[in-house]
Structure formats: structure tokens, C-alpha cells
């Protein structure tokens, strides 16, 4: 057995314990832990051949797939950090990310690689037909690598204090920022979550969230840690989701609020034929509407429901145990194991019960800040406020920006956010990123984006713009540009045109006034 220090240690342990156990299911294909370990070694060797050094970043830009899983583990085994790029992102965001963290080796679907600029990376490993454009100086076919290699077992010395992955999230400067996450953050996250979800190798976990999302990645690491089976679910349309859960007799499912709204479309089918194998479900990425929660409890009477709260900056933070679910959907529970949650008031002191303060996370999942972004890192990652001053190497904690209060029994309740971040479809989206997108159309003079409450999405994105050419009033070209150049969750559901947007005395767009004017319509 390997000690659990790195993500690929988790894999090698599982492969040693039970090599013939099915690790990954994709469509009709099943892959055992032995297959996974061998394929990982094959791709790891090919990465090294392609010049991947320890500490390098390897990008993964593809639909959720067997190859994507192998690519992450192979990067880990090569001592590199994997960077999962959400497959919904469009070339402008992908190019930004590749430049931001200097991705030189990229694993991707050919159709996606074809959309990117020539010579964006040094080597591209493609899945599918050979890409027609020259996205990379050197091209390799993933299928061929996996078919031919894997007998050796290349391994570099990789420490838990090496960089494991970079998780990109929306940034308030209008561009994505990458949360640098260590091997230890990833492994400890898997240990903690698999402990309170009581995962075992008998679990069959349906993976319906993207790996680029910390919470989605966690199903993979958790599953591998306990030697369970992970089922890769592509479509989230109600019929496919229900078929996936039934066909594979899934025991666990993690979702964000819109996923439950989709599942509940199948209420009748669930009533007629309950999902008796489904041991638990977990929600994160936003508050689930009370009515949907009650409907889930009714339709899944034997399924444990865990409400979770997490920040990409610290992976996972709190969860509400299933037996406490009557506390309501505002309740985010208590700290996950081996973690302390502080509630800090305006005076920098621990808030009294009932007093509102900022949620501050302390523990081993605190990540390493935003890649290359000093100012933002200093704002979110700060020294532990109550550590003895004699401790000269300061422990870093995460200031979440989320306002919470704690009740007498220690349960935490979500109150709101200090900033303007939009929470939509499980994504945390900065209004500035939406506004940048709108202005980059070339026809928009000024833009203000914000979220308004939507029962299923959490919030939906609304934008108010003024146009450069005052005579033009159609938003069609703006919408068209956004759909082409941004992921769907970033495209405003409504775009309103005004002649001019209201300003604050300092000449900035007055968000509050704009938002108030539209929130009530």
C-alpha cells in the first residue's frame, strides 16, 4: 500500500487492492482499476517524452470521458498539475487560461482543439481524428498512446506539497482566476468527504458535474480513494439522467440546484418506480429551493440528502448531516471534519450567536491562492486571526466573502454575499466577466450585469447595456456574439437597452440603481 499523499497514490492503492474492480464506466465501456493504472502509466510516459517537467501544467479540454480521467492521473504521476478546462468554455476563455498558467501540453477532443489558435501549445494529445489546424507543434493520438504503452511504471518523486491542480473560477477583474490547489488539498478533500458520506468500494457514483469544478472533481477523487465505481454521465436531460441512475443502479449522486429541477421533471416515473439503490445525494453550488428539497425527500424516501457548502478556494467547507435536514435550506450545517469555520464580525472578532459575520475557513483544504494574482490572493487568503503571535510562520485561512450567522447549537446559516458575485447554475460568476464579454462585442458602450433570483437556477444573469450606435436598438447581434464566445451560463438571459446607464458621483456605473430598477420588473 502507498501512503495517501498524492492523487495517483489513491489510484495505485485501489489497483493493488482490487485490480479487477470496475473503476470507470462510460457508456457501454467499463474500465477496471488495472486498466486505469496501466493507461495512466502509458500517458504519463508520453507526457514525459513530450517534455513535461515536474511542476508543469497540463491542460485537459474535453468532454467528460475516460481519457480525461486518465489525463488527470497521468499528469499527477508525472509530477505536473492538471488544469481541467470546462468543455463549455469557448476559445477566448481557453486561450486566456492556457496563457495565464502557461499550458504547453494539452489533452483535448479534436473538435475542440480545432477551434483554438495555431501553435497555442507545444504538444497536443488529441482524441478523435487528427485535428485539421495546427494548434500544437507536435500532435499525438491519445488512443494510440493508450494502446501501445503502459507496461513500465514511470514515476517521479511527487510530494503532497506539490501543486496538484489549478481550478479556474470567475474573477472580479473580469477574467478567470486559477485557484492553485496542492496534491494534499486534493487527497485530504477526498478523505474528508468519503468519510462523512461513508463511501465504500460498493458505491457506484454517478458523475454528472464537470471535473473543472472542485465539487465535480471531488466525486472522482473520492471514488478512486475508496475503490468505488464512477459512472461518467454526459447528458443531464431528465430522460438520460434517470436512465443513467437506473441502468447503473447508482448509489450516489452529486448535483447543483438546477440538476434537481431536471431530475424532478421525472417525478411521475420516480413515483412509479423509486430509485431504491440511491443511497445518498449531495447538493452544493447554491441553495436548493425549499419546494424542490421537499419534493426530493418525498420521491426519494430512502435516500440520505446532504446539503453542502464549499468554496473553490478551500475545496469543501461545511455540510448539513441528513438527519438535520429540517433546519431548512438556508442552513449550511457545520464544518467538515478536520476543519474549523470562524464567523468574523466587522470588528475582526468572532461573532456571537445570531450575529452576522464573514465565513472564514481554516483547515488542510485551504488552497494556495490565485495563480499569479497577488492582490486578489492577499484579499482572500490571510493569516489566521487568532493564532498566537509567537507562531512566526503564519497559517493561512480563507476569507470567503460569504455572510453567515451561527445559531446557539453551532449550525451555520447563509445570509448573503458582500460582493456582487452572481451565483447561477452552480457557477460563481463575476458581473465584470459578463460586462467584459458584452463590451468586447464592439457595439456595446457600457454594460452592467447582475443576478436576479430564479427558483431553479439560483440566479439568472440580466444585463443592461447602452449601445455605441444610438440608433441601433436590436440586441440580437450582441446575444449572437455572446453565445459564440462564451459558455452558456455566462450569456445573459435578458439584455435590456438603455440610452445611458446611471452613474455614481465618481462616474462609475451605479450597479445598485440599475439592479433595483430591474429587479422589480
Amino acid at each position: 500500500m502507498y501512503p495517501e499523499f498524492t492523487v495517483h497514490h489513491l489510484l495505485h492503492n485501489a489497483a493493488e487492492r482490487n485490480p479487477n474492480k470496475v473503476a470507470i464506466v462510460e457508456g457501454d465501456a467499463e474500465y477496471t482499476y488495472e486498466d486505469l493504472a496501466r493507461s495512466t502509466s502509458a500517458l504519463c510516459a508520453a507526457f514525459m517524452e513530450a517534455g513535461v517537467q515536474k511542476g508543469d501544467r497540463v491542460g485537459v479540454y474535453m468532454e467528460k470521458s475516460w481519457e480525461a480521467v486518465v489525463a488527470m492521473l497521468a499528469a499527477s504521476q508525472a509530477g505536473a498539475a492538471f488544469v481541467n478546462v470546462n468543455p463549455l468554455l469557448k476559445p477566448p476563455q481557453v486561450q486566456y487560461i492556457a496563457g495565464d498558467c502557461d499550458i504547453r501540453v494539452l489533452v483535448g477532443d479534436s473538435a475542440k482543439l480545432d477551434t483554438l489558435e495555431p501553435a497555442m501549445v507545444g504538444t497536443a494529445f488529441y482524441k478523435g481524428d487528427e485535428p485539421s489546424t495546427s494548434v500544437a507543434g507536435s500532435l499525438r493520438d491519445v488512443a494510440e498512446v493508450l494502446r501501445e504503452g503502459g507496461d513500465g511504471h514511470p514515476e517521479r518523486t511527487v510530494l503532497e506539497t506539490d501543486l496538484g491542480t489549478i481550478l479556474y473560477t470567475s474573477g472580479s477583474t473580469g477574467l478567470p482566476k486559477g485557484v492553485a490547489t496542492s496534491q494534499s488539498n486534493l487527497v485530504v478533500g477526498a478523505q474528508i468527504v468519503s468519510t462523512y458520506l461513508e463511501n465504500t468500494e460498493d458505491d457506484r457514483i454517478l458523475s454528472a458535474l464537470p471535473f473543472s469544478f472542485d465539487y465535480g472533481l471531488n466525486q472522482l477523487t473520492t471514488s478512486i480513494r475508496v475503490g468505488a465505481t464512477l459512472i461518467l454521465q454526459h447528458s443531464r436531460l431528465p430522460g438520460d439522467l434517470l436512465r443513467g441512475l437506473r441502468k447503473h443502479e447508482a448509489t450516489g449522486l452529486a448535483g447543483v440546484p438546477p440538476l434537481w429541477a431536471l431530475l424532478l421533471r421525472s417525478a411521475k416515473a420516480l413515483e412509479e418506480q423509486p430509485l431504491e439503490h440511491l443511497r445518498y445525494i449531495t447538493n452544493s453550488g447554491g441553495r436548493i429551493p425549499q419546494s424542490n428539497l421537499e419534493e426530493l425527500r418525498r420521491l426519494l424516501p430512502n435516500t440520505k440528502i446532504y446539503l453542502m457548502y464549499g468554496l473553490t478556494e478551500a475545496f469543501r467547507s461545511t455540510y448539513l448531516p441528513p438527519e438535520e435536514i429540517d433546519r431548512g435550506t438556508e442552513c449550511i450545517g457545520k464544518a467538515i471534519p478536520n476543519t474549523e469555520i470562524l464567523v468574523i464580525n466587522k470588528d475582526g472578532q468572532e461573532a456571537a450567536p445570531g450575529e452576522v459575520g464573514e465565513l472564514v475557513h481554516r483547515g488542510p483544504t485551504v488552497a494556495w491562492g490565485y495563480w499569479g494574482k497577488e492582490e486578489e490572493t492577499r484579499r482572500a487568503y490571510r493569516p489566521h486571526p487568532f493564532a498566537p503571535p509567537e507562531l512566526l510562520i503564519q497559517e493561512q485561512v480563507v476569507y470567503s466573502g460569504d455572510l453567515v450567522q451561527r445559531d446557539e447549537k453551532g449550525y451555520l446559516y447563509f445570509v448573503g454575499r458582500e460582493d456582487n458575485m452572481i451565483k447561477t447554475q452552480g457557477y460563481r460568476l463575476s458581473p465584470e466577466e459578463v460586462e467584459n464579454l458584452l463590451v468586447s462585442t464592439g457595439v456595446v458602450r457600457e454594460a452592467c450585469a447582475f443576478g436576479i433570483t430564479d427558483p431553479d437556477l439560483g440566479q439568472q444573469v440580466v444585463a443592461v447595456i447602452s449601445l455605441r450606435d444610438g440608433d441601433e436598438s436590436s440586441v440580437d447581434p450582441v446575444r449572437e456574439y455572446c453565445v459564440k464566445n462564451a459558455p452558456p451560463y455566462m450569456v445573459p438571459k435578458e439584455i435590456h437597452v438603455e440610452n445611458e446607464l446611471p452613474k455614481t458621483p465618481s462616474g462609475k456605473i451605479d450597479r445598485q440603481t440599475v439592479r433595483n430598477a430591474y429587479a422589480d420588473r
Partner: protein
Amino acid sequence: MAVYTADDAVPEIRGWIQENVTGSREIPEDELLIEKGYLTSLQTVELVMFLEDRFGINVEDEEFSEENFGTIRAIAELVESKTE
């Protein structure tokens, strides 16, 4: 029940997508709607509600799949099969 062919349904589906998602851009009939990021799952739910209303059909849970909703042509064929 009125009978609609797939060819009747195509412009209606395309029109809904333009109005609600893409703006003026016309999407080819065989373009992958979900995989290419035109439609989210929840937008697809809204589209289904529109289709049910517009064509007087009822899309069953198990029919609500990527196979049937992958392209404008596939959706139009589903509509045709339900109004025959």
C-alpha cells in the same frame, strides 16, 4: 390532432432558439445543440414546454434525452413522430 411534419417544425424550433438563445444567428439543422454549448439542459426544458404548447404534444420523461434533442432535425423528427 393536427399533423406536423419535421419540415414544419424546423423553422419553429429554430425561431425559438433564435429568440431565446442565439439572437439572429441561424443554426444549421444538424449542429450539435447541447454539446456545442448552444442549449443548457434547463433551456432544453423551456424548449420542451414551448413544443408541448405549440404542437399540442406531450414529451414523456424517457423521451427527454440527448438523442432526441441533440439537433434541430432530431427535435423536429420527434415532433413529427408525436403528431402522426
